[in-house]
């Protein structure tokens, strides 16, 4: 407990944009064949430092096979609302779930260069207290730390629907399930909210048998992955509306609400449209009567390709789909970054008008067919995937792995971990920094990135940016 609010908490997103520039990043490393323990890499991102782009500290876990994916902070700017009652929490711990093992690590990064494991919650405890498995997204919410899960109970995670559970924000004890009325929600992926407006939005990937051993082509072609987004009465814990994006819109993944809580809209990325292989972005918004609507506002076309250049899974299509696997919104709600993991592109859309996004910048790197090299001449394996934006909106970082078994299907063979950074131009535009290139330990892949002091997909702001 602090005597003053943590200096990295900001009442508004706009004020957070003026925060000190990040000097460190935290990146998850996973061992795709489970032969080594997964880990957390502390990366120096300070261009003034001789260690720029180097991993300066690592924390490896005492177990193997966790498969790290997403992670988050124990506390964020949401603490600055009197309604949360926890104004004096420290942003100090990273909550890192193993998506495959269901084990959760709490890592103390108060001294980032001496980061260490603070607590381990064993899978049995997660199962017993929640009936859920495969924990995923972390956000700091009204009653503590909210954790979304991808699986229900049982060995294959299909005994009951997946959902969200709550952890105590001080002791990290698991308190129990979030939902009181889940409506028709039976799959899960990401979630986020508007705290003062008291609503939450959640999305769907697929159930564990649909992803753990690789993508199931039959399920995809018969539209059996998730394609709905759910709206919740946040504090009432009730599903108040479900919007079906259309069953051809397979895998509705990241939910990115506007950071300014006065704005009542947000975005959701859809991996692939099974009718035409497009990737797409939906804009969802809340109407005056409190109900929600969603509309497709961005489509990204597949690119024709020689079947000889395509993996088994895609040969029949003679095209490479963009595969929109991650999206991220800058703190001024101006630019939406869209990772096209299949074609190897990072798109930057100006979403000042959320109903009419325009492409403002683009970086080509990696890709199933194109395999564009980094400006430093190095091969960038896979495609742009987990993307994170600095709070000031000037630097965009990303890594290249999607999920161990899926990486191998779309990009056979081991292509190596990568983390790169692009700089944003004054009026938009995106250019890779030729000097920023992170060398990861052998045999690892890289996943989500968190930036020191916060970034564009962690903090929930309680006051409008005016």
């Amino acid at each position, binding site marked *: 407990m602090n005597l003053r609010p943590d200096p990295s908490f*900001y009442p508004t997103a706009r004020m957070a944009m003026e925060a000190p520039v990040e000097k460190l990043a935290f990146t998850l490393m996973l061992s795709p064949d489970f032969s080594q323990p997964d880990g957390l890499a502390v990366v120096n991102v300070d261009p003034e430092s001789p260690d720029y782009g180097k991993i300066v500290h690592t924390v490896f876990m005492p177990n193997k096979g966790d498969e790290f994916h997403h992670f988050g902070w124990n506390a964020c700017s949401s603490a600055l609302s009197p309604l949360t009652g926890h104004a004096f929490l420290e942003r100090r711990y990273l909550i890192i779930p193993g998506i495959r093992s269901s084990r959760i690590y709490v890592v103390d990064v108060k001294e980032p260069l001496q980061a260490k494991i603070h607590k381990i919650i064993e899978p049995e405890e997660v199962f017993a207290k929640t009936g859920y498995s495969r924990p995923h997204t972390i956000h700091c919410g009204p009653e503590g730390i909210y954790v979304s899960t991808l699986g229900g109970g049982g060995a294959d995670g299909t005994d009951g629907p997946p959902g969200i559970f709550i952890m105590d924000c001080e002791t990290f004890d698991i308190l129990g399930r979030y939902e009181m009325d889940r409506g028709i929600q039976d799959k899960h992926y990401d979630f986020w909210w508007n705290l003062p407006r008291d609503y939450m939005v959640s999305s769907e990937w697929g159930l564990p048998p649909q992803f753990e051993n690789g993508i199931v082509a039959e399920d995809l072609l018969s539209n059996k992955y998730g394609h709905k987004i759910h709206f919740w009465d946040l504090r009432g814990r009730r599903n108040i509306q479900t919007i079906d994006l259309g069953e051809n819109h397979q895998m509705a993944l990241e939910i990115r609400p506007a950071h300014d809580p006065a704005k009542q809209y947000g975005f959701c990325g859809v991996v692939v449209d099974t009718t035409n292989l497009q990737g797409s972005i939906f804009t969802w918004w809340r109407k005056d009567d409190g109900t929600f609507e969603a509309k497709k506002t961005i489509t990204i076309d597949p690119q024709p390709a020689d079947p000889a250049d395509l993996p088994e899974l895609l040969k029949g299509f003679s095209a490479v789909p963009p595969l929109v696997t991650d999206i991220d919104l800058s703190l001024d709600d101006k630019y939406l970054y869209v990772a096209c993991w299949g074609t190897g592109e990072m798109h930057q859309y100006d979403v000042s008008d959320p109903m009419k996004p325009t492409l403002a910048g683009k970086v080509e790197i990696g890709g199933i067919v194109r395999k564009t090299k980094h400006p430093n001449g190095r091969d960038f394996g896979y495609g742009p995937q987990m993307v994170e934006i600095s709070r000031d909106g000037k630097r965009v970082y990303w890594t290249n792995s999607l999920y161990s078994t899926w990486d191998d299907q779309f990009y056979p063979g081991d292509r190596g971990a990568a983390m790169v950074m692009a700089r944003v131009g004054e009026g938009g535009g995106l250019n890779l920094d030729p000097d920023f290139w992170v060398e990861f330990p052998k045999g690892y892949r890289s996943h989500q990135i968190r930036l020191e002091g916060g970034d564009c997909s962690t903090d929930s702001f309680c006051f*409008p940016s005016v």
Partner: protein
Amino acid sequence: MEDTSLTALWWAVIASGLYHGLNPGMGWPLAVSAALMERRALALPRALVLLAAGHLAAMLVILLPFSMMAALISLEREIRIGAACLVIAMGLYLLINTRHPRFLARISPAKLGLWSFLVAIAHGAGLMLLPIYLGICAMEQEAGHVAAGALMGTDVRMALIVAGVHTFAMAFAGGLMAVGVYIWLGLRFLQKAWFNLDRVWAASLVIVGLFALALALRSF
């Protein structure tokens, strides 16, 4: 002597109100937020009124039962000692248990009055006022201002006045902060000037309670 103590007690009613009002944890940032969210300055006083109404209700829920008991004049000392002990116990509890009650986080942000009521109850804001109120009642009686038969009615009226004055001071201080931040200081002030008063708060309950206990024991 008597008059100065009485004056001191009334100042305590006002001071505790100012203290509650200044504490962001009692809600003034929500009034700023309301005005900013609705892009309408008038939402600020509206939110303040709701916060104040909740606070007033929390004060009355504590004070009124004691004002009813005042008819039991023979037990007046015991009641004051009991009330003092209650306040000390609450302070000690908050000193030991620094956890914020989870149920408060379940209240919809639209129900500001209810939130304010429950937050004041949960943090013993009404209890802080109780010994001060009982002290005022006792002094009024000792001064012979009140006929025995009219005692209960007077004490109820006194509870309303004490709670009202306290809440007015609370809303005044909170309103000053909210307006100051909304117009001049900006939300940055919230980040800079929010101090962790949890322990100070708990300690002030203990101190008020001890003081009241000493007064009650001395007065016979």
